[in-house]
């Protein structure tokens, strides 16, 4: 790079505190932006195809008892500063009728993972660039979501997979009445639905989520309801087409504690009633412990550990998970949010090719700075990505243990 280029380099905002501060020249920025446009256009064209033959996006599940299988999913954002690898190789399953909890620090890619499943990642910047997401419908037909054309996807969204978002205050359209917003989904996805039948269904759903004055709520605007009420409405709306899977993206974070408990109980109840699955995204380990069957721990766009709730809570393997469990206040304190672990998440644009957790890890060894760890399986359901448990790293651990023992003698 020429001297002039050096002088023109501009600091990339928001990267100051990171170890690897980035600088871009205007020319580099323009080049990135030009390349991005080309890439984005190509992906968008693919998605906008019409009349795609079904064979192109039909597939087979790895395990027929799963509703959804994420397989090596990569979702990137092509920004002017570079490619943000928000989801960078994520593999996990959501079994039929189970609750899978997804935890991780803010920005680790939880929401982007769930949005990828819905094909709702902010286009055109956000694109699934690699991997697959398989979805099995009620008739056992399997779809490859990443290859599905947009118009087919509309039939799954809101009907078979529905979503509940974090902010009940802003997730409902302020200018339409609750009733209208609820009826809309039913009318859209139910064959032969009339406005009467849709209303009956909406009222039924509002009753199901424990709203007392149903008629009044049905005829209210969102701003006339409290936050807890609106979240109930969101849940009612999400349920109205008997979805196979509900994605709940931090459904209780914005609510106060007593309402949180009610909403969670409600979610568990309705899940059993419709025999659906839930992908529960949260910061709150207490919620996970209470609700989930399986836990997926994400860090910087990757899964670093996954297993059943028992395995993760009683036998955490990855140093990050161990840290989480330690920092989790025991007992009934209600504020079970993730405590911060010292240090910073690596810059999402320039991910290192070694373990992302090195700079924060108490156990970091030489090999950790050399290559990204493989996934080690501890049981059929439990696995973690860490050098501590295999090969060179494991040897070193053994050596250290011996040393410690010798010193002790």
């Amino acid at each position: 790079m020429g001297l002039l280029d050096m002088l023109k380099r501009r600091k990339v905002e928001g990267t100051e505190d990171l170890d690897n501060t980035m600088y871009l020249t205007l020319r580099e920025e323009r080049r990135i932006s030009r390349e991005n446009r080309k890439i984005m256009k190509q992906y968008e064209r693919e998605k906008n195809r019409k009349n795609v033959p079904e064979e192109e996006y039909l597939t087979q599940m790895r395990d027929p008892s799963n509703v959804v299988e994420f397989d090596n999913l990569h979702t990137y954002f092509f920004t002017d500063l570079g490619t943000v690898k928000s989801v960078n190789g994520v593999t996990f399953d959501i079994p039929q009728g189970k609750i899978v909890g997804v935890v991780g620090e803010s920005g680790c890619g939880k929401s982007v993972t769930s949005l990828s499943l819905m094909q709702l990642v902010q286009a055109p910047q956000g694109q699934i660039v690699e991997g697959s997401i398989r979805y099995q419908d009620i008739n056992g037909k399997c779809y490859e979501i990443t290859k599905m054309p947009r118009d087919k996807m509309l039939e799954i969204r809101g009907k078979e997979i529905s979503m509940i978002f974090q902010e009940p205050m802003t997730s409902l359209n302020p200018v339409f009445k609750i009733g209208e917003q609820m009826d809309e989904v039913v009318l859209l996805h139910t064959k032969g639905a009339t406005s009467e039948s849709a209303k009956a269904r909406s009222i039924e759903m509002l009753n199901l989520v424990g709203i007392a004055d149903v008629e009044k709520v049905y005829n209210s605007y969102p701003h006339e309801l409290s936050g807890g009420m609106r979240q109930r409405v969101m849940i009612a709306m999400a349920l109205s087409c008997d979805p196979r899977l509900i994605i709940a993206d931090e459904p209780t974070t914005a609510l106060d504690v007593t309402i949180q408990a009610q909403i969670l109980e409600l979610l568990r109840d309705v899940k059993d009633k419709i025999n659906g699955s839930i992908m529960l995204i949260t910061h709150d380990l207490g919620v996970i412990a209470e609700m989930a069957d399986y836990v997926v721990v994400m860090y910087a766009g990757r899964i670093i550990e996954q297993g059943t709730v028992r395995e993760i809570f009683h036998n955490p393997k990855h140093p990050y998970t161990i840290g989480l469990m330690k920092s989790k206040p025991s007992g009934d304190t209600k504020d079970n949010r993730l405590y911060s672990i010292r240090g910073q998440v690596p810059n999402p644009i320039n991910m290192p090719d070694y373990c992302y957790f090195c700079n924060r890890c108490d156990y970091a060894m030489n090999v950790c700075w050399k290559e990204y760890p493989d996934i080690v399986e501890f049981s059929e359901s439990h696995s973690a990505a860490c050098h501590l448990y295999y090969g060179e790293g494991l040897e070193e651990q053994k050596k250290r243990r011996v040393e410690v023992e010798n010193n002790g003698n």
Partner: protein
Amino acid sequence: MWKYFLRRIALSLLILLGVSALIYLLSMLMPADYIDNQTAAALQSGAMTMEDVQRLKELYGLADKSFTGIIKSYMAWLTSTMKGDLGYSFLYGKPVTAVLSDYIWISFAIAFISYLLQIIIGIPMGIKASVNQYSAYDYTVSVFAMMGTALPSFFLSALFMNVFAIRLGILPLQGLTTATKIFAKDAHLQIFFDKAWHLVMPISVLTLLSVGGTMRFTRTNMLEVLGSDYIRTARAKGLSEPVVVYKHAFRNTMIPLVTSLSGMLPGLFGGAMITETVFAIPGIGYMALRATQQGDIPFIMGYNMFLSILTVAGMLISDIMYMVVDPRVKLS
């Protein structure tokens, strides 16, 4: 709610009073008044003496330019205005109200048509640009809009006149009627078309100047709405993109759009001073400019009061419409 409007109206009256006093003071302090303008030539040639001029000034109530004199004549203007009498225009020799009612309609016609065009063209373009953000369409439209907003109206008018009237010769240059044509008295349709033909250029200029603003306003608001959580919810429901954009998003974008556009309605009667003058269209803006140049104080006052009332009415309409389109708003 009624209380709110009563309070708004009371406040507006107060503002009108202040505005009228200020304008009166300023027009009285103009260096050359109406009589000076009218008699300058006669004075120079010796046809009139300073005494004649002074007598005329007294007759027109322009003689006493001391502070107390101005206050006295302002009070006189105010009392007669309260009675609904805006006085006689010096320049046009008719009651100010008569001049207003004679000339606002042509101005309104021009402004209203370009207002409609601005809505019909600007809003769909804004929506399309926001849906295809950063596309070639978006950039083209944005640049175009910026040019329209940045160009001064006299420049654009002159450009149009040069191109369409002088070079291409497909549109009439100025005025409202073809001077060389003689129409039969009952050829209403022909007269109408002749006038309409003359209005094509002024209307195009006004439309071009305002459409960019509407388009950008729509685009900005649309983009904000499209990024909001409830649009994500709408998409997550499985609604098709047109329903998401035109029902869920646009219904929200309509709130600021309707509020601002409805507030502009009364102002359409105010006339487009510069454009009307360049095209020599005898509208209220053109008349007002001439009156202002000549120091026709009754007309200046009357016209400016008229504009102020239109502005106040615009704000009230805006408030009412805001309440109509946004269920969250209860004025109090």
